[in-house]
């Protein structure tokens, strides 16, 4: 019995001692830190294949491991990444009934060029005849450029024959206009496993994206590619079926290694390559423990030079509170600050904050198929009755601005002259009265026996959307509209309400990067069950502008058309456009500094982490910890 007693008391005491020893151990060791960056995230990457991943967390890790052909620099200008230079041109092809007609047309062009100085609208590179076709190479892609040529030709008396349509159901084309992008690739780049990077990788990436078995979410960007040619190891020529200006931006996407994935059937990718990818970026894959962390280690052979950090680890901390706790105790190095905490952190000199106008906006979408919401006055009344500035003050603690439509101020094509609808409950009441809705006995308006009441739905787990719904409820009650709020799981929302268009109003958000092409969301044709115009918006003017945007290559023109589109849609109020939250990140001041390459080779600029148009983590690969200073000396130091 003594042994039983010993065991009975001994075991728990032993456990307590172990607990104590470990406690002391852990607290004692919080001093020695490695040269590693810790990033805490609530969610986890789903797959580390840049062509198959679509979620935000995968993107974070992938951006350090892979490169695209081009990228944005800190001023949001397009610069080369794996490509050192590129040029755009366009081949306009006209076909004729006979070779004689073609020869006449050719003559018109060659004479035309020598007779008059070519007008700026059609900078022509060259013309030649091939059988019954005449092919003109333009310096600039764009529909208008080809149209000018076509019209000039018609005026001269030649009559080219039309080409068949590209997509079944659309019109015949009077001419073929095929934009061409030619990339010159950087030499001497190696994959993480040592193999050389060549144009074959680019061609393979395109084929993979278009492969059904790969199921790439990026596929729609490349639907209009007609061919990807690789004349030599460091040149890629991409030809498109018709002018499509977002095409260039699609090459910011990461390139896959052909020598590994070319031999591997896509069904095996999820278990092999996607769990330990090979890229060309500043960091290479280290290890991945599911739902715990992903560790990347430095790539000493990176083509711009080895990064200063030894490793970067992405830690999964599913609970937002413990994530915050981890940041406060320096277990992770950055934190996305909740709006309510921004003010107190700003005042605290120990923190460095980086704020930028957000890239997403929140809205309440109306189901425009419901008769009640088809009355513009109702939608306008609601827009005037909801106190959006107050929402911003209270939910976002002032960190945000009212949205004026489908674009956010961060975008270079944003139209700042669109005026936000001011808060005016009196005007709202007047509009409702005018629309025939009289105040009822219980404080809710009535018309033809029906009460002015609707249900707003939104997804669960999101405090901002929940608070928006609650405040909306209050505000609209003041003008006699009853609002019920229902919160559902995301997957239920998607399949049951959005998928079947079975809702009245829904609070959602759009986060669209720098993409001016919003055809998929606003065009009247995009209302089928899987498509994104689930509110049912239809305006022929908007449709036309959306199409024009897709075909316009000139930056100025894009700004003009996008501006008009923004104003048009805002006037229509298909959504109640709410606000654009500011996003703020925080770092312990001095925890990291930046030493990045300058314009000229050999130049290294040392500066604190700073905010740029492209964000503050834009060049995260060049961060360093002051305890582990970089070996390349700084040619310029900013304090």
């Amino acid at each position, binding site marked *: 019995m003594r042994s039983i007693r010993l065991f009975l008391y001994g075991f728990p005491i032993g456990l307590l001692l172990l607990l104590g020893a470990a406690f002391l151990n852990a607290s004692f060791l919080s001093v020695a830190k490695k040269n590693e960056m810790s990033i805490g995230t609530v969610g986890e990457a789903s797959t580390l294949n840049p062509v198959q991943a679509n979620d935000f967390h995968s993107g974070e890790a992938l951006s350090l491991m892979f490169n695209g052909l081009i990228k944005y620099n800190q001023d949001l200008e397009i610069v080369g990444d794996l490509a050192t230079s590129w040029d755009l041109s366009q081949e306009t092809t006209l076909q004729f009934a006979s070779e004689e007609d073609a020869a006449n047309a050719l003559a018109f062009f060659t004479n035309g060029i020598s007779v008059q100085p070519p007008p700026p609208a059609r900078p022509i590179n060259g013309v030649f005849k091939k059988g019954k076709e005449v092919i003109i190479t333009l310096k600039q892609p764009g529909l208008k450029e080809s149209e000018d040529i076509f019209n000039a030709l018609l005026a001269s008396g030649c009559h080219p024959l039309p080409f068949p349509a590209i997509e079944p159901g659309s019109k015949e084309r009077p001419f073929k206009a095929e934009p061409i992008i030619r990339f010159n690739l950087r030499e001497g780049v190696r994959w993480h496993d040592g193999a050389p990077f060549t144009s074959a990788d680019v061609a393979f990436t395109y084929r993979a994206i278009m492969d059904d078995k790969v199921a790439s979410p990026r596929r729609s960007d490349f639907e209009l590619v007609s061919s990807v040619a690789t004349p030599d190891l460091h040149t890629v020529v991409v030809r498109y079926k018709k002018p499509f200006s977002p095409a260039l931006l699609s090459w910011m996407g990461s390139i896959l290694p052909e020598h590994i994935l070319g031999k591997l059937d896509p069904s095996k990718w999820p278990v092999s390559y996607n769990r330990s990818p090979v890229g060309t970026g500043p960091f290479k894959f280290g290890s991945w423990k599911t739902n715990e962390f992903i560790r990347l280690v430095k790539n000493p052979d990176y083509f711009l030079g080895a990064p200063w950090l030894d490793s970067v680890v992405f830690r999964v901390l599913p609970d937002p509170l413990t994530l915050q706790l981890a940041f406060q105790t320096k277990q992770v190095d950055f934190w996305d600050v*909740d709006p309510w*905490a921004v003010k107190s952190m700003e005042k605290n000199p120990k923190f460095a904050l980086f704020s930028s106008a957000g890239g997403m906006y929140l809205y309440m979408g109306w189901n425009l198929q419901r008769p009640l919401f088809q009355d513009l006055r109702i939608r306008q009344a609601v827009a005037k009755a909801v106190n959006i500035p107050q929402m911003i003050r209270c939910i976002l603690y002032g960190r945000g601005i009212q949205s004026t439509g489908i674009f956010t101020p961060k975008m270079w094509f944003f139209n700042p002259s669109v005026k936000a609808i001011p808060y005016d409950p009196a005007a709202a009441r007047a509009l409702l009265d005018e629309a025939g809705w009289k105040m009822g006995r219980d404080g809710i308006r009535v018309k033809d026996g029906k009460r002015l009441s609707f249900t707003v739905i939104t997804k669960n787990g999101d405090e901002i959307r*929940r608070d928006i719904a*609650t405040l909306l409820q209050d505000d609209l009650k003041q003008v006699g509209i009853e609002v019920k709020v*229902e*919160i*559902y*799981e995301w997957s239920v929302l998607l399949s049951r309400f959005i998928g079947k268009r079975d809702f009245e109003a829904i609070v959602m958000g759009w986060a669209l990067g720098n993409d001016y092409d919003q055809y998929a969301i606003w065009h009247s044709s995009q209302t089928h069950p899987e498509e994104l115009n689930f509110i049912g918006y239809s305006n022929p003017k908007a449709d036309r502008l959306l199409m024009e945007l897709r075909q316009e290559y000139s930056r100025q023109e894009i700004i003009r058309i996008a501006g008009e589109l923004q104003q048009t849609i805002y006037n229509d109020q298909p959504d109640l456009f709410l606000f654009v939250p500011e996003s703020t990140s925080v770092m312990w001041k001095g925890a990291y500094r930046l030493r990045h390459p300058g314009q000229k080779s050999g130049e290294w600029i040392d500066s604190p982490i700073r905010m740029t148009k492209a964000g503050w983590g834009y060049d995260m690969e060049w961060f360093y910890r002051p305890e582990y200073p970089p070996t390349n000396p700084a040619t310029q130091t900013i304090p």
Partner: protein
Amino acid sequence: MSNDSKITPSTPTGRILRRFHADPLARISVLIIVLFALFAGGTALLSSFNLNWPFDPNITNLEQKLEPPSSHHWLGTDNLGRDVLSRMLHGSSISLTVGLIAVFVSLTIGIVVGAAAGFFGGITDQILMRSVDALLCFPTFFLILTAVALLGPSLLNIVVVIGLVSWTGTARLVRAEFLTLRETEYVKGARVLGQKSWTIITRHILPNAAAPILVTAVLGIPDAILSEAGLSFLGFGVQPPQATWGNIIADGKTYLLDAWWLIMFPGLAILIASLSFYLAGDALREAAESRN
């Protein structure tokens, strides 16, 4: 009538109550439960008459967000300026409702299933008990989620579902009681006399099994309250702007490091309420069992 407390009460119920009363912990917990019921009932009563309670739980006051406890707001305000004390009082009535309805549902099903299994025995018993085992194989949370998605996220649905997934313990207990009581003399006698099963069950067996069933009921209330709090915490609780204790914590979760009152008070309330019911239930069980 003598006031001598040493005289044992004559009825079994009386004896049980006497033993219950003797336990100091039981007395405190009953006091707390009574207080809880008073707050809950009182708030429900007042709000049903739309009386002008000093603070409406749903009035948002956006100028007074996230204020710590003060003389104006005894328990502080939440992120939309709503008074935490009022929300907690209304939450108390909801918590009590949750407990009572969930227990009612689980008791009903549990008694029916357990009685059938224990009384009829044989194949009925086997089938029912295997089904009980099978039910344990389904993850409870998922069943709740499914039901909420199918039926809608109202408080009633959530509570009914909590009851639906927690009847197995009662069923087992009732079955055990019935198995024992079935063999007693008076039941056998009633059978011989030709009384119908229904009469035997309701008139003879159930009353004798009443004490353990009551104990299970009392112990089931805090389980339901804790389940609701857990569900709200995960984001699957009742809709805004209704206030339940779990909801207040879930809503206040993001601000916790700065606004400790949002989690401290509701958490303590859940703790104290659950603890009281557990202690009371346990004391009741002790009192009921110690007559052997």
